[in-house]
């Protein structure tokens, strides 16, 4: 019954999308920094994959334990890998695992979330209960169990991604489900029904477009969790040992006591790489969260 205390009608033309995006980024520095770092990493990997001989990323391809020099800008490690090549390949592989596992996890989450929320009833009850039962279980430990029971030799990046996604889909499922539940009650869905739109039409044309910011945020946080999990397993020595995954490099470095033997560059470089990846993903996630939750955005 309250009068519609609306902001005065904006007669002027709304500035186009790009200007709005830039203005939003200026106000939301976290997202800007995150995107910048992420782009830098992508550039590093793309340029690296052309300019550097990727075979040097594997053991016994170059001289051992050389500190960073003109010839080996990132130096070499105890096993004779050129760390620059190793970093390029490692970043690329981490990205593959992250995006694969994150993407799959989000996809499962969106599908189950929609089914549970929109069709409700028995489907909703089972999906919700399964998610609630699985939530308290520490996901990383189960992944450790899975990884440790696999034969070391046939563990590849893809099996890693599969292990990671196995128990990562509950988060997005619950988030998307609650969003769809609130969206379903909104009046524009009733109006769409009145306009003769079918159930599927409502899901894909009316509800899904409004959920894009949430799905994007869920995807980024899934990639973050996937990269974190892959790194975690690698550091425990459960990853694909031959691949120069950042986690493997650090596991090998700490194993050989790199710090104490003065090879400081060996553990530092992958650590910085990992911090940049996870940090940028976390910042982007924070930015997307604000985009999805208008009230949070308002105060910047």
């Amino acid at each position, binding site marked *: 019954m*309250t*009068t519609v*205390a609306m902001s005065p009608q904006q*007669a*002027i033309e709304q500035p186009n999308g790009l200007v709005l995006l830039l203005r939003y980024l200026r106000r939301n520095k976290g997202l800007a920094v995150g995107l910048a770092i992420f782009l830098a990493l992508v550039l590093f990997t793309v340029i690296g994959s052309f300019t550097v001989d990727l075979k040097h990323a594997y053991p016994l391809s170059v001289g051992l334990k050389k500190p960073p020099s003109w010839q080996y800008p990132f130096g070499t490690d105890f096993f004779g890998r050129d760390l620059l090549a190793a970093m390029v390949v490692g970043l690329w592989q981490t990205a593959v695992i992250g995006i694969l596992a994150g993407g799959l996890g989000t996809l499962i989450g969106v599908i189950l979330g929609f089914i549970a929320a929109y069709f409700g009833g028995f489907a909703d009850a089972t999906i919700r209960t399964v998610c609630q039962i699985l939530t308290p279980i520490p996901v990383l430990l189960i992944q450790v169990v899975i990884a440790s029971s696999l034969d070391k030799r046939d563990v590849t990046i893809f099996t890693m991604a599969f292990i990671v996604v196995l128990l990562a889909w509950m988060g997005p499922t619950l988030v998307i489900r609650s969003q769809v539940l609130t969206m379903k009650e909104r009046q524009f869905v009733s109006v769409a029904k009145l306009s003769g739109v079918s159930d599927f039409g409502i899901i894909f044309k009316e509800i899904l477009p409004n959920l894009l910011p949430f799905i994007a945020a869920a995807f980024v946080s899934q990639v973050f969790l996937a990269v974190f999990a892959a790194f975690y397993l690698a550091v425990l020595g459960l990853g694909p040992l031959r691949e120069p995954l950042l986690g493997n490099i650090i596991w090998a470095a700490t194993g050989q006591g790199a710090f104490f033997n003065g090879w400081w560059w060996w553990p530092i470089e992958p650590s910085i790489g990992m911090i940049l990846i996870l940090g940028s993903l976390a910042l982007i996630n924070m930015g997307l969260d604000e985009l999805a939750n208008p009230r949070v955005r308002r105060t910047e």
Partner: protein
Amino acid sequence: MNSMTTTAPDARTAMRPATAATPVLRVEGLEVTYYTDLGRAKALDNVSFTLNSGEKMGVVGESGSGKSTMALAMMRMIKPPGRVEAGKVWVGDTELVSLNTEDMRKARLGKIAYIPQGAMNSLNPVIRIGAQMVDALKSHDVKGSSAELRDRCFAALHSVDLDPGVFRMYAHELSGGMKQRVCIAIGILLKPQVIICDEPTSALDVVTQRQVMETIDRVQDEINAAVILIGHDMGLMAQFVDKVAVMYAGRLVEVATVREMFTDPKHPYSRALIASLPNLENKGVFQGIPGLAPSLLRLPSGCAFHPRCPHGNQDPQRSVRPEEVTLAGGRKVTCHLYDAEGVKNG
């Protein structure tokens, strides 16, 4: 024709004792501008009026006309990107705009109280109602044992005819009408000189609405405060207030007693507003006001109402901004039609 009640129209005002007409509230030249992304919007433009203790003034106008902005400005609660540009607000002998933040904080509820529109969630959901009253007292350095403070709260609850048991209840245990009356009780705890009600009953049913308005009326008599009722329901104004101020596009376009406003509105916008009201007599007659409320970002030239005004397409209206004039009997109007007739306010 009307089988309704037939008490004399001005029965209520006649009964009020004739207090000395010292204005308890004087607002002079209040101006507020919002610096939004899309440009500067002058939400309040040189608003001035006075109010005596025990008097009720209604403030009406379309959404975006600046009603709520005026209330927030008087309480100095305008948040960025808005800013109070100029003006004075005198409550009794204190001027609020120049007070420092600490004194202004004490003045809120102490001298001037605000009853919110959304009573539904204006009460803290996780602490008891009593705690939310006592902390208001303590924040204004009211001394006394917890028993004394509690009794003071009981008195306030009693005057809004709420059972003292509400003191120990939580917000989710109260109905909409009860929550609104708790807000009123909080408003009168420190017996302020001015009470601003920002559409207090717009979220309530019509029967509860009448109950709440009667509570405000009784409470006002008890502490002899001046009351400003902000709203858009002209019927409520007819039943409750003594004088009516009409706002349009951030300006006060007319101020008159409720009888003058309803029987002989001067400003074309007031006249159109009164005519558009559904009434027992004019069943089936629909007189809307053409056009739309102007955007504060790009106000029409001259008088802001000229695009929608029947007298609007002539010269002074289109080009020159009208000044407020005082007509016979103290009525104020801001319209070129009355330039000659009224006395300029300088």
